[in-house]
């Protein structure tokens, strides 16, 4: 597998803007994402994160701006022809299909033969630990399992770009941490190019290779993790200061004690 950001301009967004009535939701959004890298966008609720992803997925049209994936201009291409998968905050599964059929949903649309479908999903099933759940219906799964299925279904179609809209936001803290690790691990193994939006600084730091901060419809991008953390808008400095203050109060013998040097 190649290093993240092989092709630094694989995803190119230029001057994207969107208004809902008098409200300016996105204002001149411009950024690039390298192939096989994860661009983490941090932002508060209502900051325009979901609108940005929906525009990139083709589900909402932009008022102005352009969006290119590789050499192809996708600005006016309908969602089903973009091959970009959008992963929702809620783990949306098709309630009338079992786990197996949910996983292969995108492949069935492409009319692939059974052996190709099997070859495509079996490694995913193993990687995501879903072997025991295949015949279950979505209602029988936990939140974490549902999100794994949704993630697997997205990966099965091998999208050139994956859009993740706070996909672990509805999970409990432990499951969420598990899913973050799993995402990072699979992203590295498979070589995913993704845009991951979240309001959680820690999550952004775990999953991202590059970082941005979206506030009131304006996006600031950062060259690396240190620049992102050092910027006051990310809240990174305040977070570190908080943990440092706890660090002083914790007993010296605590093994799990965080250290910030």
């Amino acid at each position, binding site marked *: 597998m190649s290093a993240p950001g092989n092709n630094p301009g694989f995803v190119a967004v230029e001057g994207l803007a969107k208004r809902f009535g008098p409200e300016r939701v996105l204002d001149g959004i411009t950024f690039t994402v390298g192939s096989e890298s994860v661009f983490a966008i941090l932002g508060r609720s209502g900051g325009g994160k979901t609108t940005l992803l*929906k525009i990139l*997925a*083709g*589900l909402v049209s932009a008022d102005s701006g352009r969006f290119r994936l590789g050499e192809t201009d996708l600005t006016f291409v*309908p*969602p*089903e022809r*973009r*091959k*970009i*998968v*959008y992963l*929702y905050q*809620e783990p*949306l599964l*098709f*309630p*009338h299909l079992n786990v197996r059929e949910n996983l292969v*949903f*995108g492949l*069935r*649309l*492409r009319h692939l033969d059974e052996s190709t479908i099997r070859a495509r999903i079996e490694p995913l099933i193993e990687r995501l630990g879903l072997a025991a759940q295949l015949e279950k219906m979505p209602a029988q799964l936990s939140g974490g399992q549902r999100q794994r299925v949704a993630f697997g*279904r*997205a990966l099965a*179609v091998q999208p050139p770009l994956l859009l993740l809209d706070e996909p672990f936001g509805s999970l409990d803290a432990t499951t969420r941490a598990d899913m973050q690790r799993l995402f990072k691990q699979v992203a590295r193994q498979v070589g995913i190019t993704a845009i991951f939006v979240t309001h959680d600084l820690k999550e952004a730091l775990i999953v991202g290779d590059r970082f941005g901060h979206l506030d009131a419809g304006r996006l600031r991008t950062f060259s690396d993790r240190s620049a992102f953390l050092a910027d006051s808008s990310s809240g990174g400095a305040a977070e570190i200061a908080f943990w440092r203050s706890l660090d002083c109060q914790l007993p010296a013998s605590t093994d799990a004690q965080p250290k910030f040097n």
Partner: protein
Amino acid sequence: MSVNSNHISSLPAWRRTLGVIVIGWCWLPVVYLALLSVARDWAFPKLLPSSLSLAAWRLAFGPGGNLGTSFMMSTAVALLVATLATGAGLVASRTFAYHRRRGWWVLAAHAPFVLSPVILGTCLLFLFIKLHLVGTFVGVVAGQFIFCYGYAIILLIGFWNPHLAALESLARTLGAGRWQVFRRVLLPLARPMLAVCFFQTFLISWLDFGLVAVIGAGKVPVLTLRVFEYLGSGNVNLAAVVALCLMIPPLAILLLNRRLATLAV
């Protein structure tokens, strides 16, 4: 079965009696109609007819009875109206549900209910005369469709919600075109609701008398017209036979609906 029997036998006597009375009250008209259809010499004040005969049934289904034709006509009208209303209602309800002025559209869909079918038929009569639709099969179907279409919209509008819209969007990003979204996502999820809508609109059409009498002008011989025709000519035995035939599809639909409800649970 044994659980139900045990449950019933454990009920207090007054509740059992009340249950029997209620069930008996519901089925009394059916029993009465069945008896009436085979009654001979049933004169007041006798509680039961003096003798029984299948003459009315033979006459109804015999060569000159035309009951078979009426049954086919009623079935054809009701099937067509239910199919058109359910299909069009599904499309329209989706448009209305996601429209920013959803409330206004739903209100507009209630318009046919302000009028009874017979008044709606009277309102449509002049237009249908101009269109040469009065006294035709197409005219009756078109008239009943107007009524059932509004009903279908109101019934189906509750099916559409933001969660379903998100599923549609998700399917599209996974590569589904509009037709594939409909076939692979919406149709399977809507099936129980569509079945209920189809059955309900079928029943509205099947049991309609007023609109079919006005628009059909007696030239579209559906079963409900036959009942009144026989009653008007004083042939209560034949009227009872036709009334019993009218009950067959609703009963079958009730049983099917119950099965659907069980499946949905």
